[in-house]
């Protein structure tokens, strides 16, 4: 009976008809917004990068390169001048000029547009276009990471605000344009004819939204999907690696995973308790087993590739005995069953629950009880952004300039003003990060941030867990993929396809 039904349904695993120079990329969720003025989450940013261009872009380690801007000058500590390239066109042929840049920034800054990116432009005082190919930005005070202000994706002047979530992206000047968008189904990107690209480069990208991780793995194995970045389960990687047609590439990344505390809870304000928690987590084992080696135990927010990285900081090896001693000292003696009457709630999404159970078991060994509360992503994220949690584990993606420390650790940057969701408050940290923000000399900044990293490792506003490697699984017919440390998809724009067809499943 079942066989009959199956025969009726027919086989469904031939490769869909695609033109030879199209590739399929599987992503796990729809972008929250296709308009660069509103895109803050990782997926939206990855897609946005392929469609829009900005004055400058970072290479993920904090160094900036000009894109729309041909050159940059700093005539005074509070002024930055960008000279735009000539001949840049939007995908509909329009020339990109300073007017478009001005328009984009004004629409982000306008209060009525309610753009979530407005907060990141806080330090921008004025922006002007003295002529068609010059942009001048000024800041209220000397602002070291000023170039970060210039990373907004540019839309043509006059582009309306997004009416609803299902709208296709506006016109951009990047390597691709969004030809079609079916929310929760697929996004089709086609080449922007005015953006220079190598002659054999891929002409179009089909980004299919596939929420089920097993299906993503299957599609890769069968050759239906050509590329997937950072969305394959670690345990499935060895299985995928067995396929001749696939290449699994692991490169060190800047994504930083950490454990965050609620400093409004007096128990967590006690440094000894936080230290005890740090000593009780066996990060090495987790990276080697659960993450299957796709990570590096982290010392702080900045990863070793960052120009301001300081590795000489307090480290916390796995030492449960020390953890127990600290908890004793902090006034939480162990009872007969080993527990100390310390209970915290760990909030997580369903995907993070497994890691939560690991933390739960490790903390239990030193006498701390961790209860796990699982929420769906939207509810969870809203809670986290409001600071509504005891303990939780998150990651920061795409950290560029060390000024990021200001956004997450300065006591004035609590929600809704910034990302200090822990409500951490330390006056030494405040003075350091504020100094780092306004000092324009790289050497001086490096020294300041060395202090910041040392302080952070001492005081543990976060417990650093690990830096996540970027894992890309791709069909071998894709040639020329360059992994960016921040997991960017940018290199999809310069991919070419080799003649040999990676084909489908050939491992069984």
């Amino acid at each position: 009976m079942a066989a009959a039904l199956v025969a009726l349904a027919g086989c469904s695993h031939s490769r869909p008809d695609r033109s030879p120079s199209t590739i399929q990329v599987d992503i796990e969720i729809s972008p929250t917004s296709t308009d660069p003025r509103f895109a803050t989450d990782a997926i939206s940013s990855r897609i946005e990068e392929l469609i829009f261009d900005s004055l400058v872009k970072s290479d993920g380690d904090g160094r900036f390169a000009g894109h729309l801007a041909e050159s940059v000058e700093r005539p005074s500590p509070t002024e930055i001048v960008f000279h735009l390239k000539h001949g840049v066109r939007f995908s509909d042929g329009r020339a990109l000029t300073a007017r478009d840049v001005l328009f984009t920034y004004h629409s982000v800054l306008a209060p009525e547009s309610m753009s979530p990116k407005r907060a990141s432009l806080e330090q921008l005082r004025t922006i002007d276009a003295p002529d068609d190919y010059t942009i001048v930005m000024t800041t209220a005070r000397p602002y070291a990471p000023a170039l970060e202000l210039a990373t907004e994706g540019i839309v043509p002047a006059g582009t309306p605000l997004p009416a609803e979530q299902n709208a296709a992206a506006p016109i951009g000047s990047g390597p691709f344009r969004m030809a079609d968008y079916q929310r929760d189904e697929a996004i089709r990107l086609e080449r922007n004819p005015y953006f220079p690209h190598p002659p054999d480069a891929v002409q179009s990208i089909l980004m299919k939204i596939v929420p089920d991780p097993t299906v993503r793995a299957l599609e890769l194995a069968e050759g239906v999907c050509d590329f997937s970045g950072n969305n394959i389960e670690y345990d499935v990687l060895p299985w995928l690696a067995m396929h001749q047609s696939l290449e699994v590439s692991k490169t060190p990344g800047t994504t930083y995973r950490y454990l965050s505390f609620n400093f409004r809870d007096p128990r967590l304000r006690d440094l000894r308790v936080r230290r005890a928690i740090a000593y009780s987590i066996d990060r090495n084992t987790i990276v080697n087993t659960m993450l299957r080696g796709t990570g590096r135990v982290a010392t702080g927010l900045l990863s070793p590739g960052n120009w301001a990285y300081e590795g000489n900081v307090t480290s916390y090896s796995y030492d449960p005995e020390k953890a127990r001693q600290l908890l004793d000292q902090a006034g939480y003696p162990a009872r007969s069953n080993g527990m100390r009457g310390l209970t915290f709630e760990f909030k997580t999404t369903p995907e993070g629950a497994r890691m939560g159970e690991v933390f739960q078991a490790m903390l239990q060994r030193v006498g701390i009880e961790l209860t796990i509360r699982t929420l769906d992503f939207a509810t969870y994220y809203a809670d986290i952004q409001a600071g509504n949690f005891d303990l939780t584990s998150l990651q920061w993606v795409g950290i560029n300039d060390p000024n990021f420390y200001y956004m997450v650790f300065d006591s004035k940057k609590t929600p809704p003003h910034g990302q200090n969701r822990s409500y951490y408050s330390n006056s030494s940290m405040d003075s350091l990060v504020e100094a780092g923000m306004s000092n324009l000399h790289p050497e001086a900044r490096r020294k300041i941030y060395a202090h910041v990293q040392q302080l952070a490792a001492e005081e543990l506003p976060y417990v650093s867990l690990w830096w996540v490697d970027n894992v890309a699984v791709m069909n071998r017919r894709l040639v020329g993929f360059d992994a960016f440390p921040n997991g960017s998809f940018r290199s999809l724009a310069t991919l070419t396809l080799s003649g040999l067809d990676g084909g489908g499943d050939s491992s069984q």
Partner: protein
Amino acid sequence: MTIVVAIVAGAILGPLLFRADPLSIDLANILAGPSRAHPLGCDSLGRDVLARIMFGARLSLSISTIVVAISLVVGSLIGATAALSGGPIDNVIMRGVDIVLAFPGILLAIALAAILGPGLIDLTIALTAMGWTGYARIVRGEVLTLRERDYVLAAQTLGASPPRLLLRHLLPGVVGPLAVQATFGIGGIIGAEAALSFLGLGAIPPTPSWGNMLDAGRAFLLVAPHLTTAPGLAIGFTILGFNLLGDGIAQKVGNRA
């Protein structure tokens, strides 16, 4: 019958005999397949699957037995009350039963569990709401029939008090159908508990329940199907056992009546 005995025995004795701890995480053994040390393999955190199955057995069996016991008592009382009170009260109660029955099975349990939140006590409450109606109907039916029976009327004229009457004459008639209902009920509640735990509305991690083991196994179908097969077969065989038992009892009861 044999299956049920085997499973119950396994649930009680297993944790005693087996040294493996269902909660101990062993990250080196993530998703390990079956081996000498771990006859059913390990789960996504290296925990021994066999140990978790046994603890899950204990959970499923104890919860379903408790739920069925409570449902039986509550349902019987309500049914008896309805039948004895007669008239309008009976009507109201029976309407109430109809309304509860108007909710498709597990939906009621899900709705209650959703509002009450996860956790074993709330789970028990939610599951009880599902099943009591069957027992109410059975008892009510019996009591109504009895009221009209000759020997009851005779006993009443002889001066026997109603409670005594109930116990002596009601029980024999009611035990059979109730037993059948209860046996199938246990099987059903085991299934319902598994479904609720699967949906995240029952046992909270790290407590193992066959249902949440199946849910956890879903992400690893590709590389570790044993995580699905073990709890799945466990539930299947247990429910099968109770169904067979129920069938058997039903035949015995049918023969007598």
